[in-house]
């Protein structure tokens, strides 16, 4: 890592109030699949309202990292905090989750929204039902409350007129925007996007990025993995460059893209 990196918030003591308080903190996250070590101790802090993009070559562990953050994958070592409170810890691969850990994982996922590369809308439900199912079945809202939330979220992504449709009749870009609305309907603290536009053509990509920009303007905290360098540069408050399972560099997008503080970035950007 370069010495002239911009100052990062200290991990030790944090102000109780104010914009600099980290919303999400990740300390020493390690993850392996059997003998294959994928994440070698990732540290990251994300402040409230911040948009962080994660870049890095294929297979460096970006997706795995996001999936660990909401425990779609269990990691072996490290700790994740939300608003200063420990929400998950590493666990040895051979130990199964206890009931408490499962409940804690569910509670964590409630606070972390996730948008997938392949949308993963529920094909047996309408667009409206896709967005309503979380508030209804998980948050136990009444039908009319859930309906109101769904209407607001679908309007926000510009797709309220599609609410009675089957999701599979929509274009990829529209499906992804519905997926964003579905995650937003749970009112998460932070949203994770794993290559949300990799399966989309440029026009649809633009629509989805439009929604992401809007969310950023509204102050939503987001962590995005993307291969779109222009977008990353444009939207990021901070950019993280990952390499072989560790954070190799972190800083403003200008710092990462222009100064290219580690040789890996140089190679990565030339290839892209």
């Amino acid at each position, binding site marked *: 890592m370069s010495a002239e990196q911009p100052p990062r918030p200290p991990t030790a003591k944090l102000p109780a109030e104010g914009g600099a308080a980290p919303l999400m903190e990740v300390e020493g996250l390690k993850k392996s699949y059997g003998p294959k070590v994928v994440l070698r101790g990732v540290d990251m802090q994300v402040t409230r309202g911040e948009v962080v993009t994660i870049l890095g070559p294929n297979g460096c562990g970006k997706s795995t990292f996001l999936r660990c953050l909401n425990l*779609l994958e269990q990691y072996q070592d490290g700790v994740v905090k939300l608003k200063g409170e420990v929400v998950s810890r590493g666990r040895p691969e051979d130990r199964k989750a206890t009931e408490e850990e499962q409940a804690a994982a569910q509670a964590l*996922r409630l606070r972390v929204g996730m948008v997938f590369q392949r949308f*993963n809308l529920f094909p047996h439900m309408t667009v409206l039902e896709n967005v309503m199912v*979380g508030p209804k079945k998980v948050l136990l809202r009444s039908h009319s409350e859930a309906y109101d939330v769904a209407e607001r979220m679908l309007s926000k992504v510009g797709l309220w007129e599609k609410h009675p449709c*089957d999701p599979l009749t929509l274009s990829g870009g529209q499906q992804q925007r519905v997926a964003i609305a579905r995650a937003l309907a*749970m009112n998460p603290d932070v949203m994770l996007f794993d290559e949300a536009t990799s399966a989309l053509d440029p026009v649809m990509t633009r629509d989805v990025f439009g929604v992401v920009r809007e969310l950023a303007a509204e102050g939503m905290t987001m962590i995005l993995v993307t291969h779109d360098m222009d977008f990353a540069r444009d939207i990021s408050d901070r950019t993280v460059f990952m390499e072989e399972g560790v954070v190799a560099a972190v800083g403003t997008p200008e710092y990462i893209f222009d100064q290219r503080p580690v040789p890996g970035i140089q190679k990565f950007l030339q290839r892209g």
Partner: protein
Amino acid sequence: MESIREYLVEQIFIWKLLAAARYPLYLTALAMPLAVVFGLVLAAMRRAKTRFLSWPAVFYVEVVRGTPLLVQIFLVYFALPKLGHLLFNSDILTIGPFPCGVLCLAGNYAAYESEILRAGLDAVDKGQREAALSLGMSERQAFGYVILPQAFRIVIPPIVNDMVAMLKDTCLVSAIGVRELLKTAENIGREKANLSEMYMAASILYMLLSLGCYFLGKWVEKKLKAKGGQELPAGKFEH
């Protein structure tokens, strides 16, 4: 006058035969839902991580699929009461022909339905579970609200196929004396000395019932296709 009456009495057997056509429907209507429910249990056991659950399920499925249904029916009907006498010295394991028939049909088809259901559950994209979990659903909610409904759509066509097959297999329970369609046809045939005509009549009735089931199945399938179901080749008679 007398001769007309005699003629009508003579013709009553036709109504008896037609009335007996309800038995294949009864037996199937009772046994098939049971087979699907039991099949779902077997499929869940087989997907379980502990061998204590998965191995018995594998064993059951392989044994049932490896032996003829007729033999299974005889075994349950004749050997089970003996076992009851041996173990409990009572009639506790003795069951009547009709319940025994339903049980055997259900138990046999459950093995096939479990394989269909297992394939159906596997055919649901892994991303669906992950999307459900990421909304904060529990594993159980993800299964109930997201995975099972989708698997269900996938497995309807092969299960309907098996339902048609079961309709025809119901004739096997005549072997333990259930007075269903085949048995009724035989009884009439013996009485009237027109056995071959009665077999023919029974065949036509089985065929009409099968066709009815088949078209019902096609209709359901079409309804589901319109809602984006997938295809899954499987089923007892498509192996």
